[in-house]
């Protein structure tokens, strides 16, 4: 976004001074502006501030541009309150310059005073109605005030004046917050038409595809994002980590655990304390049937993020596989406590309970899972448990339910689940 600011500045420089009465004094005030500007864009803030101070002293603090740049520097140093008062001073000096008003609004926004920010932008809009930046900032303000419809309108108008990646990204974010993932993807893909190498866009699209369950497309975009110069310092490291995590998880889904692990190794250097990373590494080891390592990694993940239900769920799965049913029960119940609306947890809890010989509670758990979501696996497992406890009639009933749900699946999905087919055959043979 650093380009944005300099655009504003150039606008300002080209702008004719409307209230110039004495050309001599005015030119005195402005004569060092070129130097301030040059030092500022070189990021030589120390020298820049020195020149600004000299300039301000020589014209008794009435030099608009010097104050403006000083405020910008202060903001970059994180002193928003101070920079706001300087921007306000520039507005006092020259209230006809929309750039000043825009910056005041931006400062208000950064301080979290959204309604004041919007007022400022409205004011600025009166001065320059066709400014994409004002619409963009208004969009941001409305977005953080959770008025998504208005925000959407503002951002779309901003884009209609001038297209910018930043606008697309914010628009996408607003769709994501409303959980309109399809719209968000469309917007990002539209943005990618204009800047196909923006890795932030590529990663975000990839992550969104992952979220809507389209792994193939997700992988395509994430891979693209990584190939576009991964050493580019402009890409923030967290983005790379996110990309690596996401690609790793997709690779993992295709049971290429070693490849995924090698990806995670890169990420682990940057974020050794990331619970998600440890979770995925743990599940890699789980896929490689290395249960001890899996449990160790997952436990570390849970230590780092005790509120993540999925880690507890995964730990439950691993313990179920190692035959440690008491521990598995504990983790599944913890997972359910943290996220009560995930039906599969109940099924696995039921399996664990049946292995612990708690038949009644196992049945309750199965019924709860089936009540929440109809899934053929729930029915099949329920049938097996019922069969194991000699309740053949109910078992037959649930096997029928399973058959019904299973036949609704398409061919490809049915072929994928080879062991389900086997289990079905053995169960129907036993019940016949």
């Amino acid at each position, binding site marked *: *976004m*650093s380009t944005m*600011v300099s655009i504003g500045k150039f606008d300002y420089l080209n702008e004719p001074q409307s209230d110039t009465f004495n050309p001599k004094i005015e030119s005195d005030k402005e004569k060092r502006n070129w130097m301030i500007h040059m030092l500022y864009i070189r990021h030589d803030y120390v020298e820049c501030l020195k020149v600004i101070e000299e300039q301000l002293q020589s014209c008794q603090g009435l030099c608009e541009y010097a104050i403006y740049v000083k405020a910008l520097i202060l*903001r*970059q140093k*994180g002193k*928003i*309150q101070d920079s706001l008062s300087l921007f306000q001073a520039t507005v006092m000096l020259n209230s006809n310059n929309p750039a000043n008003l825009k910056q005041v609004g931006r400062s208000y*926004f*950064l*301080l*979290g005073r*959204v309604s004041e920010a919007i007022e400022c932008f409205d004011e600025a809009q009166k001065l320059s109605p066709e400014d994409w930046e004002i619409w963009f900032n208004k969009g941001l303000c409305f977005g*953080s005030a959770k008025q998504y419809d208005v925000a959407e309108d503002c951002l779309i108008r901003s884009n209609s004046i001038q297209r910018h990646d930043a606008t697309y990204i914010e628009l996408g974010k607003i769709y994501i917050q409303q959980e309109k993932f399809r719209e968000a993807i469309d917007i990002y893909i539209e943005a990618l038409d204009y800047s196909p190498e923006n890795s932030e866009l590529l990663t975000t699209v990839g992550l969104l595809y992952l979220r809507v369950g389209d792994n193939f497309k997700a992988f395509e975009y994430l891979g693209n994002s990584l190939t576009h110069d991964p050493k580019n310092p402009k890409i*923030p*490291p*967290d983005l790379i980590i996110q990309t690596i995590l996401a690609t790793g998880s997709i690779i993992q889904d295709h049971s290429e655990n070693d490849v995924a692990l090698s990806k995670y190794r890169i990420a682990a250097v*940057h*974020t*050794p*304390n*990331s619970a998600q990373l440890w979770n995925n590494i743990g599940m890699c080891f789980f896929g490689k049937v290395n249960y001890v390592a899996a449990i*160790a990694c997952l*436990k*570390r993940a*849970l*230590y*780092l993020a*005790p*509120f993540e*239900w999925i880690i*507890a769920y995964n730990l439950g799965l691993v313990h179920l596989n190692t035959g*440690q049913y*008491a*521990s598995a029960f*504990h983790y599944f*119940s*913890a*997972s*359910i*406590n*943290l996220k009560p609306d995930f039906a599969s947890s109940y099924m696995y809890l039921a399996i664990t309970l049946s292995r612990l010989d708690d038949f009644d509670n196992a049945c309750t758990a199965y019924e709860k899972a089936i009540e929440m979501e109809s899934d053929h696996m729930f029915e099949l497992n329920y049938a097996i448990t019922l069969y194991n406890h000699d309740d053949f009639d109910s078992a037959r009933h649930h096997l029928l339910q399973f058959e019904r749900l299973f036949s609704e699946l398409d061919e490809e999905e049915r072929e994928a689940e080879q062991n389900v087919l086997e289990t079905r055959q053995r169960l129907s043979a036993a019940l016949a």
Partner: protein
Amino acid sequence: MQEGNAMQMDPAILALSRYRRRRFDDTIDLTTDILARNFKDQAMWFLKCRALTAKNWIDDTEMEDEGVAELLLDDHSVASAPRPGTSLKKPFNAESGRTTANPGIRPTTRDGRPVTGFARPGTGSAPGTSRPVTQSGRFVRLGTASMRTEEGGPFIVADSLDLKKYAQRPALAKALCDYLLYFDHNAKKALELAAFATEEVEFKDWWWKARLGKCYYKLGLYRDAEKQFKSSLKDQDMITTYLELGKVYIKLDQPNAAIEYYEKGCHQHPGDTHLILGIARIHDQLNDMEKSLLYYEKILDLNSSNIEGISCLAGNYFYEDQPELALRLYRRLIQMGVNNTELWNNLALCCFYSSQYDMCLNCFERALALADDNNMADVWYNIGQVAIGIGDLGLAYHAFKVAISVDGNHPESFNNLGVLELRQGHLDESKNNFDAAISLGPYLHEPVFNSALLSYKMGNHQDSYNQLQKVLEIYPQHTDSAELLTKLRKHFS
């Protein structure tokens, strides 16, 4: 003891026998009686002197807490801007490439150091202890306290003694010197006496040199102390002298020199655990976990019931994701008869993380039964953690509340309460809790980061920025903060 028999015995013999049986109070009573009858009885004077010293003996080879004044006005350290790893004030950090504890995993103490497995003077982990103003000040206080317990004025008035005369009689002088050091805590007089005495023996007795060193040490003249101890070691190789020399170097903030001398001592006395313990502690204080653990293991090879070694190893195993091993070590401590809140609390945590849930709550119950106001809050805090672990957030909430009600200055509990409030959507309460945690525990990075994240989410970028700066001061490698900061910088530009 039958009274009749005792009456028949010579009281002097009886006193001696009681002294040997370490019944110092009886010895003192008996010798006082005898001296009241004959104040020139040198043997009894000697015995009383020894008994009083033995009664007030402190093992001063151990490290000691530094007083506030010494911390603030410390001008003994050799280098004012030492390289990392060469000073106790600037231990290794992650940048210096050593394996140090990860603050994201292992919590820190008030001094910002990773918690060790053993609370000892200098680790500063005991909550609520008031530091004495100065080290010598405490000894003066101890001196007057021991004086008061005596009826009829002090036994020996140090100021009125002719020390030169005593210095000529080695046995009496040694007893007197120890008396002055350990009972009277009058290092100045002891120094005078030792100076005369060492002159008397033509500077050939290591004992006097060591005592001279001790006196100099107590008076804060560390360079002189170093000289005396070194010269004493030349005459006679003694473990205590090595230990005291190590202490001098620690005071001078030269941990590597201390380690060097401890190593020398280890070479001469390969089976001694105290020297190894000294090395382990220094590595520990320098945040060089790997090395310190190596030495703790060495100690346990030699002495399998060294409590400090066991608990430090256990603590480390726990934070290295091996709670099962830690559990075994803590069980060993229980077998050895250690029975306190901290141990049961740690046992409970180990049980929980190694999936032995049935034991876990029992251990917490025991810990609570033994707890006092100083450590009860910690136990409840850990119960809260376990409750989060089993997903029972209601119990967790209550546990943290109880922890705070027991100890209103428990920042960790405030932080976790803040997180729980946030999960329920109570933004203001959660913010308040984070603020309380930050003000009570400025050494914690978690509440500051949580607060920064909350500010960012609520749109207040300024507060968020300021707080992130604070987090990175406490924990420079915190990746989450660094990420959030880059996001903020993007907003600012």
